[in-house]
């Protein structure tokens, strides 16, 4: 492989954000397995925003997200030669991210802070903002496994089997825990009769 003067590193993570075609993905995967950082960066680029968002919602701390994301990239780079390619790459990456978040959460002493979004300005309408804050707070209060489930299935569109694989839980457990998580989140989304009362 011939590269220009710019080097392998510079292109590695600079956005080729559009998902590559299956043929391109195969070529990227093959090159990345041989240690090509450029190909590795391109392979992960389409998944990165969702991995960041997943880590943020599981940890609720931007500083932690940066550390976890770095850990995810390193873990994926190291483990890529062992990746069998018999499932979606995204599922595999979600599993790595989820495990990295679990490890990170276990290392830090404090509990998850549900106030994470409240200081962030938003141009949206006040009611919408309040609704989002309620949802974010409710999401943060869920057990981390339930949080991961609703994000994977309801937000990111994974099927139950993929979620079960990523989180290493039985398929039946996915259904029951997802139902419990949805019930709590729907409660947060429902109109609050007290809101706005004098």
């Amino acid at each position, binding site marked *: *492989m011939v*590269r*220009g*003067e*710019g*080097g*392998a*590193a*510079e292109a*590695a*993570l*600079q956005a080729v954000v559009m*998902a*590559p*075609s*299956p043929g391109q*993905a*195969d070529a990227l*995967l093959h090159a990345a397995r*041989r240690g*090509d*950082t450029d190909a590795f*960066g391109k392979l992960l680029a*389409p998944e990165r925003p969702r991995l*960041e*968002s997943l880590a*943020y*919602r599981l940890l609720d701390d*931007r500083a932690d*997200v*940066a*550390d976890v994301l*770095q*850990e995810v*990239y*390193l873990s994926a*780079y190291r483990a890529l030669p062992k990746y069998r*390619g018999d499932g*979606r790459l*995204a599922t595999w990456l979600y599993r790595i991210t989820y495990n990295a978040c679990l490890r990170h959460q276990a290392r830090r002493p404090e509990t998850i802070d549900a106030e994470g*979004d409240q200081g*962030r300005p*938003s141009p949206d309408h006040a009611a919408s903002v309040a*609704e*989002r804050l309620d*949802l*974010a707070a409710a999401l943060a209060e869920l057990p981390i496994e339930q949080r991961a489930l*609703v*994000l994977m*299935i*309801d*937000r*990111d569109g*994974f*099927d*139950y089997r993929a979620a079960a694989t990523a989180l290493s839980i039985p398929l039946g457990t996915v259904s029951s825990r*997802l139902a419990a998580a*949805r019930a709590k*989140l729907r409660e947060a*989304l429902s109109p609050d009769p007290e809101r706005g009362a004098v």
Partner: protein
Amino acid sequence: MNPDRDNVVEAPGRDPELGAALAALPHPELPGDMDARLRGAIETERRRRRRHRSIATLGLAATLAAVVLGGAALAGAFDSNSHRPPPKVMLASPLTGSPTPYPTNSVGQTYGGGQEGIADPVLQGVVAMRGENGYCWTSDLDGPQPISLQETAWLGAVLSRREVAVYKADGVTQVGIFIVGGGSMTYGEPDGTTITKALPNRIAKQPPVWLFDQMKGLATDAGDANAWAWWTLTTADKAAAAAGDSVAQTGDPTRPVYVAIILGDFTNWLWSLPKGASAPQYSWIYEVIDAVSREVDGSGASAKPFTAAEKLELNIVGLRDRIRM
């Protein structure tokens, strides 16, 4: 094999309304240098993986040679208690023995992007913090290389993220700054267990120009102008405690002093030794410098790291060149 890249497939049982609300939640705003951090982490891992292969290759060759030759002579070359082996020599040696594919600058230094299966160029292509294209010295990116478990443990405590100068292909003209380091360090204990240790995440501060010049001068005099150094501003009593017996405390214990610790190949240092005595194999130099007078209050040298200095908030700096950006 096809790594199915269909990113979002409408799944049975998905709650689209809840999904839309979740998708509308704010996305995290990550640090501006996140791309650089990820690039640095992966590049570091790639080099580490390649180095392991090269060390394994060298180790196998050495083992075979030792068997053939009786082993005695070569065994010493891999004894971590002997003087520092120069890891940069291993990195600079192409594994395949083939001619380098990299272009060279006017002084013959190779530059470009690292390629798998061959040694890194002397100057590696990077994108600096503000987007400038340029090159970092591979030795700057690699950082200090421990040669014993004790050094590994010490570096694990003090090897924070650090700024590295980015140059034009000439390796002289600085065009920007690149940040490397952080993450974690993995190493093996003698009993075979593997330890992964999180490295300090803060970015090391740059020293005052006079202090950099003073440390550079000392390292040059001691025989390794491209040594690595750690520095901090503290008080005399804390500096003396951190240095252990190597530096005696003098004067007011609360006065401000700079601590400088330098790691390099100082085997050629000109020592005042009795005739016939061999020079000690020192890799570590310690200096306490009065912050006001800039006079050296005390100094010491050791073959081992100054373990107690871990308690100070040390800032790593490469002495090969001062960052001028």
